[in-house]
């Protein structure tokens, strides 16, 4: 018996497999019933159409003159790009579990954190990427053992729930698509559907007057990006 087999044997307890499976099946049946009551399922074509429409609508909202006027980045103290190891709990739709390493870059007067590709509850291939920009001076920092969400609670700066409230304060454009922006307690959370596949593209951050602040390349390769010299 090898070590791993011994480990599994130690951790094995009596499991009510059949009984709990039945309960799970029951829960799924209930969920299916609820869904069918709520609405008929959309076809994939309709879903795609809805997605495109949502993206276009988001674009119109973001590009609407004056929509970005509230954006006023506060200067941050200059420092080298730094890696921290975690981010607030979830992206706005609650599907992404984001405790992957974060790349932080500070250019001009805005701090930007760029996340790597995130394994998500949507499963393989269903990735989303989040990018956070914070407008005040202090970035939350975290070690592997301290999650920023908890640190944030301590500091009283981030409310997980608030991240889901969309506020169009930052104009972001890539070569191909516009993405969505959420705002909560000093953080801008920028996210996009996996289908947009933005890897390798450049995000351009614009000030409210339309002038260019800076570009941030979107990369999923943590450790190879120039913004992450501290990453090992």
């Amino acid at each position, binding site marked *: 018996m090898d070590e791993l087999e011994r480990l599994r044997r130690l951790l094995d307890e009596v*499991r009510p497999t059949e009984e709990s499976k039945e309960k799970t099946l029951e829960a799924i049946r209930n969920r299916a019933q609820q869904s069918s009551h709520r609405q008929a399922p959309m076809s994939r074509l309709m879903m795609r159409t809805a997605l495109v429409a949502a993206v276009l609508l988001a674009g119109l909202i973001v590009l609407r003159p004056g929509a970005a006027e509230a954006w006023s980045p506060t200067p941050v103290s200059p420092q080298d790009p730094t890696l921290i190891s975690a981010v607030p709990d979830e992206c706005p739709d609650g599907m992404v*579990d984001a405790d992957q390493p974060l790349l932080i870059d500070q250019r001009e007067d805005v701090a930007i954190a760029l996340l790597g590709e995130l394994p998500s509850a949507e499963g393989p291939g*269903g990735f989303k990427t989040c990018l956070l920009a914070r407008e005040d001076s202090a970035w939350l920092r975290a070690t*592997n053992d301290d999650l920023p969400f*908890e640190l944030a609670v301590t500091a009283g700066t981030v409310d997980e729930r608030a991240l889901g409230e969309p506020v169009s304060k930052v104009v972001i454009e890539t070569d191909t698509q516009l993405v969505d922006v959420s705002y909560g307690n000093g953080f801008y959370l920028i996210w996009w559907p996996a289908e947009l596949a933005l890897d390798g593209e450049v995000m351009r951050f614009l000030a409210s007057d339309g002038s260019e602040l800076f570009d941030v390349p979107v990369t999923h390769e943590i450790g190879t990006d120039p913004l992450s010299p501290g990453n090992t």
Partner: protein
Amino acid sequence: MERSRDDASAFEMIVHRHYEALLAYLARSVGTQSGVDLAQQVFLVAFESRERFKPTQPSARPWLFGIASNLLRRWYRGEGRRHRAYNRLGDGERSADEFTSEVDDRLSAAGRRDQIRAALGSLPKRDRDPFLLFALGQLTYSEISVALGIPVGTVRSRIHRAKQHLSGLLYSEALNAIDEETDRLG
């Protein structure tokens, strides 16, 4: 899985096929009760997001274990908070009974399991996910690669690092305890 997009009842086949392995993985990781709860959550999340499953994937197994890893990570976060809160509350003096009970717990099989789980939970998050999938979920490297969306080489190095980390904790000690118990039980 593809059929379940239009026919929800077809999803039940997925449950029948993968439930036992998933429950084994989760129960080993966090104990039976939490494992049962998490297993149900995995399938509910999978059911809700079945539209997103890529039909090109040969099996739903890595996808489901990927969801399980996400939920486990969240569970560990909650446990970490509870543990820290408990430590803050537990600074007072303990009674002799409490002390005896704690010693008994540590000597029991359940106590050993808890110790092992605590050691696994103390692994750096990045290494813990692939290690648990490998050691407790019995996934192959390539399945873990798909489940976590990381290259196979990274899977390998993270598992290696986790093993090194654990050997410095109570991994070996616990394994010896299993041997002792196996010998004792004949």
